[in-house]
């Protein structure tokens, strides 16, 4: 189930909120677990068993770590077992066909056939969450969870189940047992959900249609300006799609009393790639830093080792995004940029005029999106070379048509990528704000519903991860 659908907004959500708030406090954890499973199982009921499997396995591992804490070697083995099971699930469901397909290219394995496993939604997100649980318990960063239903709530919590933010166990450990519910919190959840809904339905889907045009444009019609226009459209699409989803998740969390950490912080205003990754998909970056980069030694073991660690972490980060070579390349692309920045460029950028560092960052990020967006390597190279001037000329009338047609949208999206809107709203006198906010909420609900009812076009990008 996706948030931006009639089903979620006008059936699932009202029913879940009613059930949740009408049931007595001690029943809420089981109500939550059941509605989470319905949310998850809606598309593929069979994978509910996977969710229950993950819950039970990681719950047991947590208890075992707690029990054998005195025996560190054993405790470590238990953590390792949990990590292996989670990665095993991820490998089997997400990567096995990629490896089979590539092995089959080698003569000796040419008889191998892909298994055709369908990807359970959100598996990349929740396996990372459950791994963090056993590790946090082992590290004494969080207490063990003795109530399996409450643990199940953590594993399957519907707001962030299928597209994050990736919530580390220690960040919500206390909230699972006890959380605050108030009108203020609920209202802030509503506001946040509405912001996310607008980003997804009104901005991302809209600009996505422009990318759809350029994504399939034959090489002989793809001009340099056109290629840039197309990939800029994708850059907006993926940002508003993904950060909109995170906003909705955070908002929904607040409606049922949870407080999640932020996942995006205006990434497109960054002045370096290093800064970009502190502002983009923050929960994933934090996860990798905490559970991979620092355990590998981080930056404490000399320059060479730091570079190697950066390389490893970013290659995995790239590959996490999808079982295809282009995602790996995309990760390595960022590894190289981050190494260069660490070596010397960051100091230069700090001294450079703001416009230079902004442009530098945006251009590289946008080129990165071309690597990310086009899975087929041949087409990807064709596209990027068109961006760099090797296309069918500089521009043509098609580019003018789409540029003029999407100009209002592009301006709105450039504005929405910066904190200016929030700043303006906060400048308003308190009284006008108290009127403006409900009006904006009503307006967004009405227009978004119109788009959802007209939902011939509502693909959700982050489903595949």
């Amino acid at each position, binding site marked *: 189930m996706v948030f931006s659908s009639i089903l979620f907004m006008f059936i699932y959500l009202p029913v879940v909120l009613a059930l949740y708030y009408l049931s007595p406090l001690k029943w809420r954890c089981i109500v939550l677990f059941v509605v989470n499973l319905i949310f998850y199982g809606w598309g593929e009921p069979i994978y509910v068993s996977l969710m229950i499997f993950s819950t039970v396995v990681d719950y047991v591992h947590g208890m075992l770590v707690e029990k054998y804490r005195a025996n560190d070697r054993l405790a470590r083995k238990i953590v390792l077992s949990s990590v292996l099971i989670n990665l095993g699930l991820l490998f089997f469901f997400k990567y096995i066909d990629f490896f089979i397909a590539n092995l089959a290219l080698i003569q000796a394995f040419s008889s191998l056939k892909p298994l055709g496993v369908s990807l359970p939604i959100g598996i990349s997100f929740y396996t990372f969450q459950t791994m963090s649980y056993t590790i946090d318990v082992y590290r004494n960063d969080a207490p063990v969870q003795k109530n399996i239903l409450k643990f199940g709530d953590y594993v399957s919590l519907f707001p962030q189940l299928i597209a994050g933010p990736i919530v580390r166990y220690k960040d919500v450990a206390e909230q699972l047992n006890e959380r605050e519910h108030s009108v203020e919190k*609920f209202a802030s959840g509503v506001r946040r959900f509405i912001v996310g809904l607008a980003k997804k339905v009104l901005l991302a889907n809209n600009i996505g249609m422009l990318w759809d045009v350029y994504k399939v444009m034959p090489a002989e019609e793809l001009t340099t300006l056109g290629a840039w226009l197309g990939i800029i459209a994708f850059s907006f699409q993926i940002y508003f799609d993904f950060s909109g989803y995170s906003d909705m998740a955070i908002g929904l969390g607040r409606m049922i009393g949870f407080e999640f950490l932020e996942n995006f912080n205006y990434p497109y205003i960054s002045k370096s790639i290093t800064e970009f990754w502190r502002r983009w998909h923050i929960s994933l970056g934090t996860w990798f830093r905490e559970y991979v980069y620092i355990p590998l030694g981080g930056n404490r073991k000399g320059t060479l080792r730091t570079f190697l660690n950066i390389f490893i972490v970013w290659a995995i980060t790239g590959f996490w995004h999808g079982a295809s070579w282009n995602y790996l390349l995309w990760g390595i692309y960022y590894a190289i940029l981050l190494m260069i920045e660490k070596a010397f460029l960051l100091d230069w950028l700090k001294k450079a005029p703001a416009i230079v560092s902004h442009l530098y960052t945006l251009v590289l990020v946008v080129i990165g999106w071309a690597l990310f967006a086009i899975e087929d390597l041949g087409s990807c190279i064709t596209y990027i070379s068109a961006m760099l001037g090797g296309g069918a000329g500089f521009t043509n009338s098609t580019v003018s048509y789409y540029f003029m047609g999407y100009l209002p949208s592009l301006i709105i999206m450039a504005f929405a990528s910066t904190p200016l809107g929030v700043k303006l709203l906060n400048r308003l006198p*308190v009284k006008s704000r*108290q009127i403006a906010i*409900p009006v904006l909420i009503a307006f967004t609900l009405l227009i978004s*519903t119109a788009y959802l009812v*007209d939902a011939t076009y509502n693909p959700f990008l982050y489903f595949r991860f």
Partner: protein
Amino acid sequence: MSKQKISNLIQVILFLAFIGGFFVINLITPDRAFSEKENRMLEQAPRFSFDSLFSGKFTSTFETYITDQFAGRDKWIGLKSFSELALQKKENNGVYLGEGGTLLTRLDRPDENRLETNISAVKKFAGDIGIPVYFSLIPSSTEIWADKLPKNAPSYGQLELIEDLYSGSGAVNIDTYSALYGHKDEYIYFRTDHHWTPLGAYYGYRALAEAMGFEPRPLESFTPATVSEDFFGTTYSSSGIRNVKPDTIVTFVEDYEGLTITNYTTGSAEEGVLYDYSKLETKDKYSMFLGGNTPLIQIKTGHEGPKLLILRDSYADVLIPFLFEHFSEIHAVDLRYNKSSIKDYIAENGIDEVVISYGVTNFVSDANIFLLGRQ
């Protein structure tokens, strides 16, 4: 209570009233079977079974069902269309909103293989059949009315495409393009439908007459009759663009005593009509012409003349009536619904001449034309 608290409370109530309110309204409003505006059956409540649940069919049908049956669906779609226009959007679902509320379907680059297959089937047919074969490709409104398109709006060029196809057809090619282009300021295409109007077909008929060597009737000799003034056609439905004026349907050829039409819509012979006025009560008003899509229609015109076979798509529905007085029999075959051997049909029915008539946008995408190339 502080003002801030009241403001928060208002936001919460607003949100809950909206989602909860529509939850209740949707429960109590009755389901509709058909949407006039969209010209399609709406999804109905799926029947639950564990099989359909586990195959995913139940859940996906259910989602379509509740979206299709959402209270006030047409008004929501209108609101979406309105906000698109407010954003200066001139395109929706591959249809442009052109000057004067004209809806023009974009043609994308055609598939090379399909082009090759189709044109070589025509060539093989024309070379083998042993009677004259005429070939007419009808450009779409997007091409002839290109000056109504939004500025710079891309659409694949049809003139070059038609010339290309003609050079490999092996048949006598009809210059329908120039015939239409010469009258592009007239009402030769519907604004909300992909077809040409009977007036457009009249100019197509003149081009045909010139190539086939008969004298066309002058336009002034017909008595035009306006039969509908509220026709919303296919592009209106597919684009989702609202706020455009409906089309008018004007007929030219009059029905007459001695015209016998046999229609095979259902597979067996039935008496057909020139104009099925009952279709004007439905959404799909264009199908009033010869009763709409059909595998085979046989017409005895009551006039003297050769026997004509026309291999065609729905553009020919408005063209055929103009041909009555020049042929004794007209047989119209639609290859999409009729897979029998054309060669045998020609021999069995003593056909003298063949016209292959297609809208060019249909011709480049049709998957049945290869049937012509069969022995």
